[in-house]
């Protein structure tokens, strides 16, 4: 009150004061009480920040020399069949290294392994790409950003940055902007690659491999192509009309988000998650908030947990509808595309009313939500559930049961269970091949432990199964929302946090089930107000990588259908 008056001119303020003085005194407590009630209520004060939270991980240090044998043992003896993530980290004095996250499908146990090499000039670490196919791309990512070379990896080219890029941008001492001015000449892609090995005397040897031979018939798809869902470049070698090999080139939308995060405070880092997988904006941001909250011991209320769960599921519906629309569009069914968007707008309306945004939503915050749900929220959602149930039948009529769609999808782009597990393809794409990988079931978070829903798993593994999986998931999501929408508990929508959020030193990992797979956040903190390293497990990267396996031997005309059913979002892959 006093502050406001200071802004006015002195005379006006004085006259007002005189006039308002008697009336103001009784009104003051009421006026003050109101904003206090509207403000988020204070729950338990956060415990001392020195204690790391429950999601802290303590990777076991394995020397590079012993790494391969240890990983082989873990995979075969302890049944660690799922390599969740490899995170490259620059530990400064200690050297450069990687953290490996392993998760066993059979036992549900997790393992974290860390390896580090002190040599900054020529860092070498043995590869694990012969054990898990997904390591092929994860290791190339580490090479690209940290310059660690993997011994025995068959293809040590850069994957995100230009092949003529200088330096390794994620190293703490690298100055990427100075060394790499904007180049306007076209990038020359090499057709050969190199493999590093250590011979008996301990010297490094280089072997050259051919990616595409001169006699290969090549087709370039992308980076500007309407059906790659973003800017992505596939170099495809053909044998007649059949696909012989696919070499994905990524990085056309690499925005350096992970590097940017290292200079941002924790609340600032949130803004960028929405812009990676914009069809999983709620879930990605949920994952990051959850990681920070758990790590810093910030409690969130029950209300927040339930609202977050509902929002995640709405987002999943939104994403699956868009998946359906785009698949139809790619296969030439424009009517179905319009049907899908008609329904998607309904979800966006719900988002917009509560969050203010349609696509980039910015709703989850550390410790809660940006705003409480809109008074209309429950009503709207309850209207939407029967509406969607009715309309999804139209999808079957117009496209899914259509004979052309069936012929083009059934039996096309087959993936076996071994391929998806080794390739780390989580989400509906993996579940269509029989892999039980739903994080909501395996490691329930938010309010998923109190709702009843089915994990949709099919066994065919073809494009059609992937489509059906997603359609069934829409129904399951509706089912989850239905159970929660009338039971949103009362409570504050935001826990009061400290003005500067600091995470206790340590390494943390949390994951959620995003729209297209497991979205994980690896956070390494030194106790500062910005993260030391923040790495995301991209949901789409394994899906792009599996394209080669899914498309080999298929017709080039079917490539876009396969690509459509795998359903990835490119900015999330490139980050």
């Amino acid at each position: 009150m006093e502050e406001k008056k200071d802004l006015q001119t002195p005379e006006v303020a004085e006259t007002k004061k005189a006039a308002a003085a008697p009336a103001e005194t009784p009104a003051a407590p009421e006026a003050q009480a109101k904003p206090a009630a509207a403000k988020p209520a204070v729950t338990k004060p956060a415990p001392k920040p020195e204690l790391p939270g429950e999601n802290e991980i303590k990777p076991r240090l394995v020397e590079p020399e012993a790494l391969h044998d240890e990983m082989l043992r873990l995979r075969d003896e302890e049944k660690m069949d799922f390599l969740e993530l490899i995170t490259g980290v620059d530990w400064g004095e200690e050297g450069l290294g990687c953290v490996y996250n392993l998760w066993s499908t059979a036992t549900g146990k997790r393992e974290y392994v860390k390896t580090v090499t002190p040599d900054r000039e020529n860092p070498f670490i043995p590869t694990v790409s012969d054990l898990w196919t997904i390591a092929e791309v994860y290791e190339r990512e580490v090479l690209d950003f940290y310059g660690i070379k993997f011994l025995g990896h068959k293809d040590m080219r850069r994957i995100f940055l230009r092949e003529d890029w200088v330096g390794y941008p994620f190293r703490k001492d690298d100055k990427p902007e100075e060394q790499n001015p904007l180049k306007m000449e076209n990038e020359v892609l090499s057709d050969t690659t190199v493999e590093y090995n250590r011979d008996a005397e301990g010297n490094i040897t280089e072997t050259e491999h051919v990616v595409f031979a001169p006699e290969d018939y090549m087709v370039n798809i992308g980076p500007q192509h309407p059906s790659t869902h973003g800017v992505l470049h596939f170099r495809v070698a053909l044998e007649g009309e059949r696909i012989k090999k696919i070499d994905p080139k990524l990085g056309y939308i690499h925005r350096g988000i992970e590097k940017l995060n290292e200079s941002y405070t924790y609340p600032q880092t949130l803004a960028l998650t929405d812009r990676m997988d914009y069809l999983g904006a709620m879930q990605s941001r949920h994952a990051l908030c959850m990681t920070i909250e758990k790590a810093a011991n910030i409690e969130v209320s029950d209300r927040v947990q339930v609202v977050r769960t509902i929002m995640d599921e709405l987002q999943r519906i939104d994403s699956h509808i868009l998946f359906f629309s785009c698949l139809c569009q790619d296969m030439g069914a424009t009517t179905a595309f319009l049907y899908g968007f008609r329904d998607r707008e309904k979800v966006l309306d719900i988002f917009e009313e509560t969050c203010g945004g349609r696509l980039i939503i910015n709703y989850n915050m550390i410790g809660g939500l940006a705003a409480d749900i809109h008074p209309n929220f429950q009503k709207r959602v309850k209207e939407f559930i029967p509406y969607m149930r009715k309309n999804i039948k139209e999808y079957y009529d117009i496209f899914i049961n259509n004979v052309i769609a069936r012929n083009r999808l059934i039996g096309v782009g087959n993936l076996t269970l071994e391929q998806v597990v080794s390739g780390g393809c989580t989400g509906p794409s993996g579940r269509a091949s029989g892999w039980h990988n739903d994080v909501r079931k395996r490691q329930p978070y938010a309010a998923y432990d109190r709702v009843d829903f089915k994990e949709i798993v099919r066994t065919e593994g073809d494009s059609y199964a992937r489509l059906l999986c997603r359609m069934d998931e829409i129904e399951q999501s509706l089912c989850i929302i239905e159970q929660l929408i009338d039971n949103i508990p009362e409570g504050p929508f935001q826990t009061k946090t400290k003005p500067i959020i600091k995470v206790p030193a340590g390494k943390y990992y949390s994951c959620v089930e995003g729209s297209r797979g497991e979205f994980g956040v690896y956070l390494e903190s030194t106790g500062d107000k910005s993260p030391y390293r923040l790495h995301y497990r991209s949901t789409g990267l394994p899906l792009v990588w599996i394209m080669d396996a899914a498309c080999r031997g298929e017709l080039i005309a079917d490539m876009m259908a396969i690509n459509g059913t795998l359903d990835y979002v490119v900015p999330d892959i490139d980050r």
Partner: protein
Amino acid sequence: MKLKRPKIKSIPYEEFNDNETYEKLVKELNENGVNVIVKKLDDLFDWGRSNSLWPLTFATSCCGIEFMAVCAARYDIARFGFEVTRNSPRQADVILVNGTITNKMAPVLKRLYDQMADPKYVVAIGGCAIAGGPFTKSYHVVKGVDKIIPVDVYVPGCPPRPESFLYGMMQLQRIVKAENFFGTTNRKEKDPQTLSESLESIKEVVEKQQEA
């Protein structure tokens, strides 16, 4: 001379936001005076052109999804004649730069722009295309597409609402309507290379390769 005011169906002239810039542009275009008869023909052509601008489907990230929403049922870009999105730059009139342009993408965008036939227009959509958006501090993001290609209309937002897309496109229609088609816009493009010139350039390349 009194400036002719272009008519856009759904918005009256006064309700557009930056009429000063627009008037300045029109004045520049008409500085040397216009031919009365040709101008009439121009108007006819510009009317046709402005109502059938074909965009190139070019979307790199988030803004592209909003562009899809604009094309779809509720916002229905077809009302303005922009629905014929082309996948080939050769057939497109306007490139809508939806989304972040990274260093690796920049040469590709330039190439796409060069491949488009004149007269061509560029609309920068979203904070990223205008100035790098939330990623301006990044080492791998171009801080505005106008560093690479000339931009006609900027549509701010992150992402812009579908209504802003349409508003931006209407602004572009006004620009198209102001142009003098004959003798200027239709002659923007350089004359195609003659055969002897092409042979010469090929020779140069071959010589360079032989040297190397």
